[in-house]
């Protein structure tokens, strides 16, 4: 299973950024791998979302070529795929950064001051939720409950949970990532 070429390694991203800041070139996902994923779901149109989720999980984003391939194999109009890719938060039509920051803004965390944490993250990284910075370093998303309410306010970076965040600690934690 050739997964290697599909993933955007930090090295590839660094190269792309260095060469041309304006036009960041990124590799499209391996066509065979996409066919494999589609085959696993028997090419069923009802599995469209599951297929896209797998591509998103491996590739960290959905390149247009991948969507076109899925549209053709599943015989599903591009409008439906486009709607799905933009309707659901799990999908990204642009490459993501090296570090995924998830700030929990669930009610329990909100009541404990999550909005201040989010403000600090936005100030530090320069991006808003849903965005990735131009160096492809950080991607920021808000999430609506990580289920760790006892540790609220919670911020998750690259899957690691940081609990009981305040404005001061948030800045300190972010400084550690490069």
């Amino acid at each position, binding site marked *: 299973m050739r997964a290697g070429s599909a993933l955007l390694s930090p090295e590839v991203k660094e190269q792309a950024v260095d060469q041309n800041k*304006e036009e960041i070139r990124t590799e499209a996902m391996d066509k065979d791998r996409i066919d494999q994923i589609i085959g696993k779901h028997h090419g069923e149109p009802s599995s469209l979302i599951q297929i896209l989720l797998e591509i998103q999980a491996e590739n960290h984003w959905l390149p*247009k070529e991948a969507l076109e391939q899925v549209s053709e194999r599943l015989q599903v*109009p*591009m*409008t*439906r795929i*486009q709607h799905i890719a*933009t309707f659901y938060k799990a999908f990204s039509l*642009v490459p993501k950064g090296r570090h995924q920051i998830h700030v929990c803004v669930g009610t329990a965390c909100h009541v404990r001051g999550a909005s201040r944490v989010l403000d600090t993250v936005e100030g530090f990284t320069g991006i808003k*939720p849903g965005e990735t910075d131009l160096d492809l370093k950080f991607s920021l998303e808000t999430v609506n409950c990580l289920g760790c309410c006892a540790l609220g306010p919670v911020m998750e970076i690259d899957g690691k949970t940081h609990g009981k965040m305040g404005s001061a600690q948030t800045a300190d934690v972010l400084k550690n990532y490069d």
Partner: protein
Amino acid sequence: MSEILLKIDGKEVKAKEGMTVLEAARIAGISIPTLCHHQKLEPYGACRLCIVELDVRGWTKLVVSCLYPVAMDLVVTTRSEKINRIRKTILELLLAHAPDAFELQDLAKEYGADRDRFEKEASFCIHCGLCVRYCAEVKKKYAVGFVNRGANREISFIPEVASKECWNCKECFQLCPTEALQAAYVLTEALTSPPPSFGREAKKYSSSRK
């Protein structure tokens, strides 16, 4: 198909099984305002202007007549203080997007809707879905669809399909209640955008657009 008797605004109406309340009302000559309804298309139930009150065992229920199936002894009211109030606000919400749309202006006059009640919005699409549904159900070309969700929902043409199909067609333009402004604008945008390179694609689809 069996016959169904119902009452609309006090009037006895004979309808057939499988009809909607809107269809039955039209047979009886009772007018109910609609925006997203079109006889060639499946009922959509998005604009909510066609809401009516049903009397069900003493309870009043609000439903959209374009989708609600007729049933024996149904008691329907198409206009009331509450219904009028709700229709007025719906129109005002839409006028914030498309204050110059003729259809909206006519309805606004009837319901006393104030076009300046809400701050003007940037997009003049009112999401009736007529263009999208027509292209899908009648033309079966799927050249235009919806993207994003909630307040960020917009219509979007697929450039590859549109460049092949739309110039010969444009049938959706005359369906657009905002006087084809929205349909034409978005089509032009899709066809004149430079070929997708990452940078611009990113700007277009970034979910940060609020």
